[in-house]
C-alpha cells in the first residue's frame, strides 16, 4: 500500500501560526525495524532525549478486557507493542526504508513527538534520515506523515548523516585524526536497505550513493526459507528468526556446527544453523561488494588510497560477525591498495540520528522546510 495524497506544499517561508514557547530539535533515524530519536533544545548542545524505538505500531484488538493493556491505550508503540503481540494488530509502517503504511507511520511520528515534547507546547524541527537515492514519492510520504506533527523538517540521506554522526567533533584538526566527512566510504546496512556512500567533504551527489534493497530483512527471509527447508513445520516466528540472526549471524567460510536452542511445540531443540546463517549473510556480501567497488572507482586517484583506509560499516549489519574482515580481504584479494574496513562500533544505532541532530543544530533558518496544509 502506498500514499496517493497530493504533494504537501513545502515552503521555506513561514505561514501565520501561533507562537510556541520553545523550539526542540530532533535527529530522527526512521528505520525499517528500529528508529532512533535524539532531541535537544535549540541553542543548547545537550541531548535531552536519546531513544531507540522498534518501528512498529500495535493497534489493540477489539474486546480486550480492561487492564490487560497498561493505561487501556488503544495504540501501542515499539517495545510496548511487541510485548503485547497477542493483543494487538502489529503494523510495520516502513518497508525497505520507505513508508508503506502511512496511517501507522503518522501515528508513529505522533508517538515520537510525544516522547520529545509531552506537553505538546514546543515548536518541533526534525531532521529525518532517508535512504540514499530515496525518490520524490518517498520524500513526499514522509512530509505527509510529518504534517501536523512536526513544524519544520529537513530530509537528508542516511549514509551522509551516519558520517556526520560518526565524526568526532572534539578531535577535528588533531594530528592523526581522519575526519570521516572529508574522505570516507560509508556502508550503512539497515533493515530494509544497504546504503553505500562516498563522503568527500561536499554533499554526496546521486553518483556518490548507491542504495540496495537488500539488508537485514532480506537476510531474515533467506534464513527463514533455509530453516523451513531444513526443519519443516518449525513454527518459528519472523521475530524469532530475526533474533537468531542478530545473535549468530556471520559472513565468510561456513562455520559448523552452530547450535541454536529454540522452543518448537513447547519442547527445546538444538538446531545446527551454521550453514543457513552463513549462506544467508554471505548473500549480503555478494550484493554490496559490487556497489562498493563501483564507488571506489569513482574516487580520484589522488584520494583513493586514503579512501581505502576509511571504509566504515555501520547500521545493524555492522554487527554481523566478520563483515569487516571479509570485505577487507575481498578488496585486498582483488588488488586494492591496503584497504582497511572498520566497524562503526557499538553506538551504530545512533549515528544517523546523531548526524541528523548535528544537522538540525547547524541548519540555517532558511534551510528548514515548513509543512503547509
Amino acid at each position: 500500500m502506498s500514499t496517493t495524497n497530493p504533494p504537501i506544499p513545502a515552503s521555506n517561508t513561514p505561514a501565520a501560526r501561533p507562537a510556541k514557547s520553545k523550539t526542540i530539535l530532533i535527529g530522527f533515524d526512521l528505520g525499517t525495524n528500529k528508529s532512533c530519536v535524539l532531541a535537544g533544545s535549540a541553542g543548547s548542545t545537550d541531548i535531552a532525549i536519546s531513544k531507540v524505538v522498534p518501528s512498529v505500531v500495535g493497534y489493540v484488538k477489539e474486546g480486550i478486557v480492561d487492564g490487560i493493556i497498561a493505561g487501556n491505550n488503544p495504540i501501542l508503540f515499539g517495545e510496548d507493542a511487541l510485548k503485547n503481540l497477542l493483543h494487538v494488530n502489529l503494523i510495520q509502517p516502513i518497508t525497505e526504508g520507505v513508508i508503506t503504511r502511512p496511517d501507522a507511520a503518522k501515528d508513529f511520528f505522533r508517538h515520537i513527538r510525544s516522547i520529545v515534547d509531552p506537553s505538546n507546547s514546543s515548536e518541533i524541527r526534525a531532521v529525518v534520515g532517508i535512504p540514499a537515492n530515496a525518490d520524490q514519492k518517498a520524500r513526499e510520504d514522509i512530509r505527509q506523515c510529518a504534517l501536523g506533527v512536526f513544524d519544520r523538517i529537513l530530509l537528508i540521506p542516511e549514509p551522509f548523516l551516519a558520517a556526520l554522526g560518526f565524526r568526532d567533533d572534539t578531535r577535528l584538526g588533531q594530528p592523526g585524526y581522519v575526519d570521516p566527512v572529508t574522505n570516507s566510504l560509508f556502508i550503512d546496512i539497515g533493515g530494509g536497505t544497504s546504503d553505500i556512500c562516498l563522503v568527500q567533504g561536499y554533499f554526496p551527489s546521486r553518483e556518490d550513493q548507491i542504495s540496495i534493497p537488500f539488508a537485514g530483512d532480506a537476510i531474515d527471509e533467506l534464513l527463514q526459507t533455509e530453516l523451513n527447508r531444513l526443519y519443516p513445520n518449525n513454527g518459528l516466528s519472523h521475530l524469532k528468526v530475526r533474533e537468531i540472526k542478530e545473535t549468530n549471524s556471520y559472513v565468510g567460510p561456513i562455520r559448523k556446527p552452530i547450535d541454536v536452542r529454540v522452543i518448537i511445540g513447547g519442547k527445546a531443540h538444538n538446531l545446527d544453523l551454521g550453514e543457513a546463517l552463513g549462506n544467508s549473510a554471505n548473500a549480503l556480501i555478494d550484493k554490496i561488494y559490487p556497489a562498493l567497488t563501483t564507488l571506489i572507482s569513482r574516487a580520484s586517484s589522488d584520494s583513493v588510497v586514503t579512501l581505502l583506509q576509511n571504509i566504515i560499516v555501520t547500521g545493524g549489519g555492522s554487527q554481523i560477525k566478520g563483515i569487516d574482515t571479509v570485505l577487507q580481504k575481498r578488496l585486498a584479494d582483488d588488488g586494492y591498495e591496503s584497504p582497511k574496513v572498520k566497524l562503526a562500533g557499538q553506538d551504530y544505532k545512533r549515528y544517523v540520528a546523531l548526524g541528523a541532530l548535528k544537522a538540525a543544530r547547524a541548519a540555517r533558518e532558511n534551510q528548514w522546510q515548513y509543512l503547509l496544509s
Partner: protein
Amino acid sequence: MIAPTFKAASTADSPWAELVRLCRQICIDSERDPEKRSNSGLLFSRALSDVQSRFGATSVGEADLEKIIATEANRVADAAVTAELLLPKLVAALRTQMPTVISVPAATMPAPSPAATSGTTPQFPPPSPAEKGTPPPSRKSPRAAPMNVADLIDGMLDQDKNENRR
C-alpha cells in the same frame, strides 16, 4: 598572408579604431539593455560626428560607419549567444567541484539575448536534461578542508532543486 577584407583596427588613435571602439560600446549597451536599442541610430551618428570633428571630416564616412556597425553588431551578438550557452554549463561544472560555493541565483543569469531569439543568428539546441542538471560522472576528489554543515546542507538543497527542475 590573407588579405584583410576589413580595415585593421589596431592603430590606437586612428579615426577608424576610434569609431570601431565607440560603435562596439553602443552595440554592447544595446545588448545589455534593449531599451537603448531605439536610440542606437542616433548614437552611431553622434559617434561618427565626434570622430570626424577630432580627426577631420574626411577621416571616416557613412560607408565606413555602416561597415563597422554591421561587423560590431555581429560580434557582440555572437558573444552574447556564446555566453548564454556557456554560463549554465560552467555553473554546473563548477557546482560539481564546489557544489555549495557556486550558487547563481536565477536573477543573475543572463536573460536570453535578443540575438539568440531574433532568428537572425543560428540557434543552438537547448542542453539535454543531462547537460542541464547532472554533470557527467567524474572521478571525485575530496575537498582539502571539510565545509561546515550548513554549507553541506546547501549543497543538498541545490541538488534537490536540480532534481525537481528535471
